[in-house]
């Protein structure tokens, strides 16, 4: 499958998903300029309820998939998840802290929860950075992995402690947040997440061939001309920014980041110059579809999107795996 094919699928998903939902709306009414927007229910369903969801799903799906690809190459482990280095644990801790404290404010249209989540992600990244990367000439992936596991465990424990101190409401809100939700209802959080995601993509753009080489081993990559220390730093920071942006927008829907790289590799091969962009496109499309199912399958109520990604992604991946045998 070529990149163009992936791109077409993703574009179709973006265009068609807002047309489908638990409420029936008339497209004619949606785009009817004669009705003032403030009174046009159909238009609000399309532009306030559905379209931001679809765009958020695209960003979250792409964000997790990209960081999944990078972590899997960096750690030379095809099962590495976007949260192997504790970025998601840090993000979750940030969310839990504000939900427990019942903090309630908004900055530039972005509410406190996404802000705190992103701050937590950056915090985790900073810790891993200081511990693993500042030591001497870069780091072996084993040290990186172990540092990440330790940080992840520490931050998860801190999160559980916060939950313990929390009242029932705080705990309930935390559980809800952990299941993921793409119902952002406005464009401000999407634009806010686009900033770190954009930065991450700039980093990602320099990496594809380097990821191929690093996956052979750090020494092997260096012997072929890769500046491994610098490349690993760029990769780590970009992947963490990408995960951070995705978690703050939609919650920890991490499974996407583990399975999408695998599915994509089965479809396009191992060359990261294809795998990286294809994963972003496929991840976006997958999450759009999963969210669509989540919001229509038991209408009028919804299912958390994290459950759908697991139900769909898991068996699909198994099918691909056994089909190839």
């Amino acid at each position, binding site marked *: 499958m070529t990149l163009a094919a992936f791109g077409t699928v993703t574009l179709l998903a973006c265009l068609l998903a807002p047309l489908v939902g638990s409420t029936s709306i008339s497209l004619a009414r949606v785009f009817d300029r004669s009705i003032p927007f403030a009174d046009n229910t159909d238009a609000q369903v399309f532009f306030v309820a*559905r379209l931001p969801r679809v765009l958020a799903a695209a960003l979250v799906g792409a964000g997790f998939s990209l960081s999944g690809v990078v972590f899997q190459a960096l750690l030379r482990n095809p099962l590495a998840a976007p949260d192997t280095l504790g970025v998601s644990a840090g993000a979750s801790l940030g969310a839990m802290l*504000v939900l427990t404290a019942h903090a309630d404010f908004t900055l530039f249209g*972005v509410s406190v929860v996404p802000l705190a989540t992103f701050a937590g992600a950056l915090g985790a990244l900073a810790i891993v950075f200081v511990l693993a990367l500042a030591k001497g000439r870069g780091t072996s992936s084993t040290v990186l992995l172990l540092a990440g596991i330790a940080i992840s465990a520490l931050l998860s424990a801190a999160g559980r402690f916060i939950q313990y101190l929390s009242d029932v409401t705080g705990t309930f809100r935390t559980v*809800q947040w952990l299941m993921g939700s793409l119902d*952002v209802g*406005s464009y401000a959080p999407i634009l806010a997440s686009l900033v770190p995601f954009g930065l991450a993509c700039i980093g990602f753009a320099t990496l594809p061939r380097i990821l191929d080489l690093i996956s052979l081993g750090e020494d092997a990559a260096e012997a072929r001309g890769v500046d491994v220390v610098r490349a690993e730093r760029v990769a780590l920071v970009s992947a963490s920014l990408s995960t951070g942006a995705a978690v703050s927008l939609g919650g920890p829907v991490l499974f996407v980041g583990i399975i999408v790289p695998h599915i994509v590799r089965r479809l396009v091969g191992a060359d990261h110059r294809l795998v990286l962009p294809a994963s972003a496109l496929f991840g976006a499309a997958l999450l759009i579809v999963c969210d669509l199912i989540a*919001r229509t399958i038991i209408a009028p109520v919804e299912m958390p999107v994290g459950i759908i990604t697991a139900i769909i992604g898991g068996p699909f991946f198994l099918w691909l795996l056994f089909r190839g045998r």
Partner: protein
Amino acid sequence: MVAIPGPLRLRAKGLGLIVAIALSLQPSALLGEARRVISIIPATTEMLFAMGAGDRVIAIGNYDTYPPEAQKLPKVGALIDPNVEQILQMRPDLVVIYGTQTELKRRLDRANIAYYSYVHKGLSDIAQTIRSLGMRVGADAGANALASRIEQQLADIRRRVASQPRPKTLLVFGREPGSLRNIDASGGDGFLHDMLDAAGGADVLGDIHRQSVTMSTEMVLARAPDVIIELRYSKDDVNNADMSAWNRLSAVPAVKNRRVILLTGEEFVVPGPRVAAATRRLAAALHPEVRW
């Protein structure tokens, strides 16, 4: 004083002692009267104090913040983490617990301590619970008076709104701070729904038979409530920016007509003696045209 020979007196004293010990070892609930009551549920704690049995309460739950005179009592946990050791140490003769706390029930059975199993149900069950709890602790009179008073007040509210049109109402009791994500609203079951019904509102989610429904923005637009009531019960301030999140859904009649109402207070989420006051506040918000 009748002269009783020495050895007989001693024997009488011994027998009396044995009887006294035997009596004190019985779960006193069997006697219909409890002197040392622990309640770890906000609703029942309020009920006990409101029915006049507050002097028998020796400990309360972590989240029991009302009435003020209860606050000086030790707090021994709640639904998720009851402090079993502390409860046992205090030697209560009745513990009011949730029906789902099976582990705690087992421990109390082993320690031969009686318990009252509370189940959180609808509005009408509140009066019933007050009466049965009153019987258990031996405060029947106070309990009956309290229950009757609540029933009368609710009937009064119902009567006043009976002739008014019932606006389609969305009753929200929580959402993610600063946004419209994970809106938790009352469905067609449970005491919040019953309160809304008594206050003269038509629950816009009445067809969904669950106590709580997590709504999406699309669903709010689809259901198009005339009134949105948001309940908050912690002491935090609510700043303007937060309620303004609803303005994104300007096509919803409640938003367009500026009938998004914030009501704060714990009486809304504790199905206890203050429900009548809570229902009255709901009714006043829904029907400002009636004199309250």
